[in-house]
């Protein structure tokens, strides 16, 4: 199981639901997402008051997610290679790695980005349970902000955000005035850039 689980944290979690009723799965995801975004947003707001600019990207991202949620727009679960899946997978992988790292030796180094505030082995456990904790939300938000920073190209960042807000490729294509194929290509690039962030096991 551990070989498969980190690859598909959401699919695995929602798989039984989806098999039965895709509508229900989407609904669960939407509720969880709503809570996740709201929590992350409030958490980030507090954090950014005190701390640094890096949070701003995450904050503005979560503000736009929040607006999307208010307008009833949720990320579609069945979208192939959904960016949320990549994001959550990254969060989970990091947590696993961090735990393994800590478990192997108390080296005291901080090389691996530590998922702050998470005690348990899997920060997504609470999300999967449908009741994300503020810590888990903050963890997701932080990672989301960091990944958006990583793109350092306004178009790529816009496309990533819109996609995570639940816009379809076609809508995004219209927004940026390019053909759909271009949006697909850029999304693939974004996913690949993000997947490149997965800390290697060795």
């Amino acid at each position, binding site marked *: 199981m551990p070989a498969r689980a980190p690859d598909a944290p959401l699919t695995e979690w929602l798989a039984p639901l989806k098999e039965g009723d895709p509508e229900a799965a989407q609904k669960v995801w939407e509720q969880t997402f709503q809570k996740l975004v709201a929590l992350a947003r409030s958490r980030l707001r507090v954090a950014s008051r005190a701390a640094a600019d890096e949070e701003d990207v995450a904050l503005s991202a979560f503000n736009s997610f929040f607006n999307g949620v208010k307008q009833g727009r949720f990320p579609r679960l069945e979208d192939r290679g959904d960016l949320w899946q990549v994001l959550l997978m990254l969060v989970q992988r990091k947590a696993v790695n961090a735990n393994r790292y800590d478990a192997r030796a108390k080296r005291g180094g901080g090389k691996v980005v530590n998922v702050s505030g998470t005690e348990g082995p899997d920060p997504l456990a609470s999300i999967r349970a449908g009741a994300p904790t503020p810590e888990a939300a903050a963890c997701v938000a932080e990672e989301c902000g960091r990944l958006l920073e990583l793109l350092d*190209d306004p*178009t*790529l960042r816009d496309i990533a955000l819109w996609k995570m807000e639940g816009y379809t490729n076609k809508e995004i294509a219209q927004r940026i005035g*390019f*053909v*759909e*194929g*271009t949006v697909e*290509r*850029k999304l693939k*690039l974004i996913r*690949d*850039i993000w997947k*490149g962030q997965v800390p290697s096991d060795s």
Partner: protein
Amino acid sequence: MTPDPNGTGARKAREPHIDEFEAAWGNGRPKIEDFLPRVGEHERAYFLEDLLVNELEIRRARGELPAAEEYLARFPDASDTVRKVFARPGTSNRTTTLLPVATPTRSSNRFQPGTRIAERFVIVDHVGAGGMGEVYRANDSELHEPVALKFLPESAGRDPARVAALREEVAKARKVSHENVCRVYDLAVHDGMPILVMEFVNDGSLVSEIARRPNKRLEPTEVNVYARQLCEGLAAVHRSGYLHRDLKPANVLISDNTRDRKRSTASGPERSVKLADFGLATSGADLTADQIGAGTVLYMAPEQLGGREVTEQSDLFALGLVLYELLTGQRPFPGMTREELARQHAQLIPARPSTLVAKVDPALEQVILRCLEHDPKNRPGSALEVEAALPPPTPKEVEDKQPSKPLRPRVAVALFGAVLLGLSLLAAVADRTMAYRQLPEVQTREVLSHRAREILATLTGSRESPGQSGYEWDVDLLKEVATKRPDGWHPTPDARAPLVYFWYRSDPFAPTPMNRITPADPPMTAKGTACVVLDPEGNLIEYYAVPAREPPAAPAGERDAQRERCEHKLFEVARLNRAEFTRVPARKRPTTFADDVWALDEKGGAARRVEFASCDGSTVYFCVSSGRPESKDRVEGENIVWARDRKLVSDVPVLIVLFSALVALPLAYKNWNLGRADMTGAVRVVALYVGTALASWALITQHTMALHTERVLLMHTLGVVAFWGGLILVFYLAVEPYLRRTWPERLSSWNRALRGKLLDPLVGRDVLVGVLAGACVVLPLRLSAALQDTFYLPTLAYEPFTPNVPSGLLIGLAAFAILRAAGMFVLLLLFGLLVRREWIAGALVTAVLAYGARLNLPTMPTDTTLTWLGAIAFMGSMVCVAIRFGWLALLTCSFVGSVLNVMPLTFAPHAWYATNNAATFAALLGLALFGFFVSLGGQRLLPDEW
């Protein structure tokens, strides 16, 4: 170590290029080949894949059907990538067609690239399918040229009668050769299928052109350009006895001329349209003519739909429909079935395009609506009539109107030789026919000024007398000699009656003239002002001084003693012998104040007479004349009369010009508003005029150190230049578009020169021809003068030419030539509008100009047949140059003619004006050489074996 060419870093770095490629589709057709070199070799394959995927999606979204073969041919090294992209799921059938095109027959794409057809043509690509059948791009393996193969329906091939008819049509169609008609080469047969072999046109049709535009229409200026080409193509088809019968956007192909030739040598339009499928429609595609999908019925005239007689006007109706659609993006008649269309085409009045689209030229709108008249009789008479009614072509089109074909070396050498011969002939003739040659040796300005200052120092006692000077004609004497006394051209030595005199004027303070400083401008009123007039050798012939205002404190002595003193001084200065003269009563008073006036006549009935006037004992007026009672003062007499005449000569045209400017102003505004005016060209012409006029002023005028005089001179010049410059601007904007519309080919080389293409062979040809013509046009009047026992003098409007004339005059003549050429073209245009026949207009303009030229010949009788003939030959040949070679040649001709008139060439080294030979020869020969070399366009003069 090279980074992974498909890693995220590399891909991210490629993104901006791909985005740029996609954005470039918004305004044209970017070429993948242009983008590929932007990345390193090892990344190319991935980059090509991305670009290809992108391009295919865009092209399919536009309704095109890109074929793998096309790309395989373009990227032979990357066939794997191309195949991979074309094999991708979801990319093949995501097409949406925007305009009705015939569905391809089931057997479409039956020939793969590389297939050999009719043993001669190798298929390259499937281009499309139309109402008549499939079209392939192929290579003619014998002539190595791309051709288009159109496979006609197999049914046509089975019927021998139809094949025979087709063959006949093709034989006829081959004869139509025009750049706006797609050429038909041959009829080939493959497997019993007739195939039309046609010219391959590389950039789609008007259908794809419209489809690629965001609002599905073209800009009005583009429509105008295409409309002109369509008219010319259609006219060529009609000329060869054809009717097109099937004119529609799909049959108007677009050729991107920049693809096939190097940009540096480009001439001709960048994109042109070509009419395809003319005449063949009836025999080739009548099977599908009734189907709306073929698109044919949509563009049929009402008489065509009604089955009545089809004429040229039916094609013009289709042309009107096509232009209407290009202009507005919609069809004027909404019907889709034959019945609907028949009714609408015969009854509906289409909406005016200007109500649908902004900035439509009314001329374009009007001619389109005329083409769409229901009754063929109300439509324009021919395609050329439509073209003539279109708004004027753009300056760019005019530039491209004539091919920039270099002259054949033989012709160029002949022309250049003729120029040399002509100039030599003129130099020989000038010595016998020009009035200049008859004048005595004239001293230079420096020598005469020095002499004048010496005289003034002796007479007034002042040591320094700075002043202004100039040469002038003795107009009355000149006219008298020219008409009544042929012997007067060779006056007796020291007769003190020269045809040309020199004046020197000294003022106590720098004078402020009304126009330019002369002995009469400003009038001599200030105490201390003095003026001397010398003959060409430096002998005193007149002297003026303004007396002091206050009388002397003590009365001067005896009147006779006073006269003696005056005479003693003046006779000495004037180098005359007092003993040869005896006192007589004075016949006239001088213009200055004087209290004593007397005169002396030469003893023994000799010609000379001396006049004196004095005030308070000092001489204020002295004059030596020929002694005839009618002789007048040079400075205050005939000069004033002549000044009045001269002003009249310059005032009448100015008034005419001012009045016509009032007419031209709204016209210029209208042209500018409609986008017809050539603002760039106008500004450049004005800049050229202002530059030459100011440069010539700066070089010719005698500048002084007195700032306020200089300022007045400068202000006056600026005023004149601004006045004419402004008028040129208005006239250029107002008249040039009409010239462009009427005679585009006559402005071709001018527009090229104006836009910096000075090294274009056509520019060279016109300059060379202009120089030759200039050398020829000045001959007739000289011969006419010689036949009438007199000598030719072009005009009195210039100061008599002096040995050390500033070369700035050449520039001034150039500025004048611009005005003259423009004037002649305006006259040609106006008379052309009045009489509608070019040769009659030319004859009328010649008559008017000859009438005017005749009046401006001071040394020739005005009413003799010979003078008339000379003037007519002079102006007539200029008009011919204008009509045959256009504006640039006329401009050069006018300039060269002026130079040859004002600065004549001579073979006599002792002639007083011989010093100008160098400047004149250099200017004319330089121009001719420039024309000669440029007209060759880089060809070698001698064959290689030399």
